[in-house]
């Protein structure tokens, strides 16, 4: 708690700094794309949000495993805290993608492999959050959601490759890889990197704040319980 209290303002400040720099740089000081026009600028929100949605689930998977193996309570609370943040990230990615897709693909939504697997990820987040909310006893809830998170991860990966069965789809392939020849141009890439850093920091900040709230709520409950016993 002390470490996180000292870190928190720095993290929040840095993420605000990165997001404003990246946002202003990306939105006002990059040229329009040759084909996509100014709609290309949605990349500064869409890509980082989508990355954090997936990484958020991976973080929940790791913290769930730590909870199941080491019974470290903060770990379970961090997983609980990350759920709604990750859900928000998936929603941002889906909505910005729809806004971009309407002028570019001529449709808000297509049953494309990437879009579909993201929708499924949203459903997984919803189920995870709902299970946390439904179970009353905190330790039981932590155990059950951890098991769900592990099984869900396996099935999320399975679905990701199952939907590839249909077709390659509309969504463009990866263009940020480090080892590929054809990547996005540097003019767009540099502000995008700043934005990604900003989203990572934002995610960490939000999860820390929420975890601290959960820890405080847990402490409050134990104090109340002690008072009732006395």
């Amino acid at each position: 708690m002390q470490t996180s209290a000292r870190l928190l303002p720095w993290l929040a400040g840095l993420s605000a700094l990165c997001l404003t720099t990246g946002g202003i740089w990306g939105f006002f000081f990059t040229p329009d794309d040759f084909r996509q026009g100014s709609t290309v600028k949605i990349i500064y929100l869409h890509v980082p949000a989508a990355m954090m949605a997936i990484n958020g689930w991976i973080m929940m998977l790791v913290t769930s495993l730590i909870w199941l193996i080491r019974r470290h309570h903060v770990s379970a609370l961090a997983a609980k805290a990350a759920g709604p943040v990750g859900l928000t990230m998936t929603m941002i990615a889906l909505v910005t993608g729809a806004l971009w897709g309407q002028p570019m693909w001529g449709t808000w939504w297509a049953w494309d492999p990437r879009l579909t697997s993201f929708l499924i990820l949203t459903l997984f987040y919803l189920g995870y959050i709902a299970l946390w909310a439904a179970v009353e006893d905190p330790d039981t809830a932590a155990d059950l959601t951890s098991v769900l998170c592990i099984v869900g991860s396996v099935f999320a990966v399975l679905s990701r490759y199952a939907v590839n069965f249909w077709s390659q789809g509309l969504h463009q392939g990866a263009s940020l890889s480090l080892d590929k020849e054809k990547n996005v141009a540097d003019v767009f890439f540099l502000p995008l990197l700043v934005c990604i850093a900003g989203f990572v920091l934002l995610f960490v900040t939000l999860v820390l704040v929420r975890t601290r709230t959960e820890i405080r709520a847990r402490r409050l409950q134990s104090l109340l319980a002690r008072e009732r016993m006395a």
Partner: protein
Amino acid sequence: MTALLLRDLRLATRAGGGFGLGLAFFLLVAVLVPLGVGPEPALLARIAPGILWVGALLACLLSLDRIFALDFEDGSMDLLAIAPIPLEGVVAVKALAHWLVTGLPLTLLSPVLGVLLNLPGPGYVWLVLSLGLGTPALSLIGAFGAALTVGLKRGGLLLSLLVLPLYVPTLIYGAEAVRRGVDGQGAPTALLLLAGLTAGAAALLPFAAAAAIRVNLR
């Protein structure tokens, strides 16, 4: 374990056991869809594989919460947990019993409903095969979802929210196998992936479900 299986089958087939509800639901779906989308044969033939698979999946979903709920309420689950057979085995047997009373009848009934939906000739073999291979996975995944929500008072809605995303790969491979079978190309690939999914679910999910039940019994 055999005794447990027979007991579960007897309970399920007894009046009020919920047996037949899934079948009736499956039948209703197959009857209502042509009423909804119109009787055009070509259109029905195109959507038949998907409708049949979605119908089977939803019919399976209907009876999931009964897998553990009744035993949990009357305390049989506690006895089964301390019984000499491992809880993982209990889960596997219960999933098998669920499959025998829902998945298997659904599979056997599906060709008849295929006629109602004007499924093209080459599709029938693949329909029965894919349902036969895929519905055990539905029962196993459902048993896992039921194990997660068994401690809740009204877990039904949550159960479907948890289970539906888990059903996605099974549904895609299953419906794809039938569709490819109808088109006459590459159905075995989808079928093999489906079988692999079922085998993987049978090997791993009983452990996850048993862990969830132990937590719920605590």
